[in-house]
């Protein structure tokens, strides 16, 4: 099993990919990708908090903002990515490889 970890900071200025991001101070909300679905499909966090996507399927997946402002990039089985959301709003996303897979991240103040 190959584990990948990626951190992305998403704010008003768009997505910044890096590995030296300051911790948000709370554990990420976890979204499991299983059987071609995001579980849970909808999550709510506060600004500055993070979401962690973990792919459990054989098929590679992504979590990609519908406006393509942020993206986990490809997650193989066992792969995971963490994205921090700094700006309140509603962020619908999908899997770029399997577009019927959809989810929403809601960020509150």
């Amino acid at each position, binding site marked *: 099993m190959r584990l990948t970890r990626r951190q992305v900071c998403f704010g008003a200025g768009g997505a910044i990919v890096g590995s030296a991001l300051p911790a948000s101070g709370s554990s990420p909300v976890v979204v499991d990708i299983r059987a*071609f679905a995001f579980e849970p499909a909808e999550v709510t966090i506060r600004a500055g908090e993070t979401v962690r996507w973990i792919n459990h*399927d*054989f*098929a590679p997946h992504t979590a990609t903002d519908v406006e393509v402002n942020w993206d986990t990039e490809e997650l193989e089985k066992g792969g995971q990515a963490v994205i921090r959301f700094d700006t309140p709003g509603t962020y619908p996303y999908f899997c770029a490889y*399997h577009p019927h897979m959809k989810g929403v991240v809601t960020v509150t103040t």
Partner: protein
Amino acid sequence: MKTITLAATLAVGFAAHTAQAADKMNDLEIAHTAYTAGQIDIRYAHLALAVSDNAEVRAFAETMIRDHTAVNVAAGDLITKLKVTPQDNDLSRTLVKGAADKRAELMSLSGKAFDCAYAQNELGYHQVVNQTVEGVFIPTVTVEPLKDLLSEALVTFKVHEGHAEQMVNGLKCG
């Protein structure tokens, strides 16, 4: 809808043949056939990428390469872990021969004719494979990790079948 009916009819007829060939297969033969079926679809997809200019068809083909490669990598890892060698068999040979004939047919086509033929074949192929995996392979295999792998792979293949059906409908092949 006509195209789906045709594909379904072909699939049912071929599935009966396939189910007959799959009768009394052992675990190593099933592993070989499952792997072979994935490789066949990857080859169809590479052909589609070489021939088709249709964005939907190309996206589907790329997904087939990505997903079937991932499943077969997992199958290879399991084979290595179990220290066994999959066995070639009549059903694998039937699939390979059928796929060679279908590729020859597809290579004689271009444009929308190719796209429709590829899409319809993908639908029919996934119907046959899924029926065989679900109805014959999974109930037959005795090694639990192989049963688990086939069950998980079936989830992927069923999504492909649905995707292929959408592609056939979207192409309006008539």
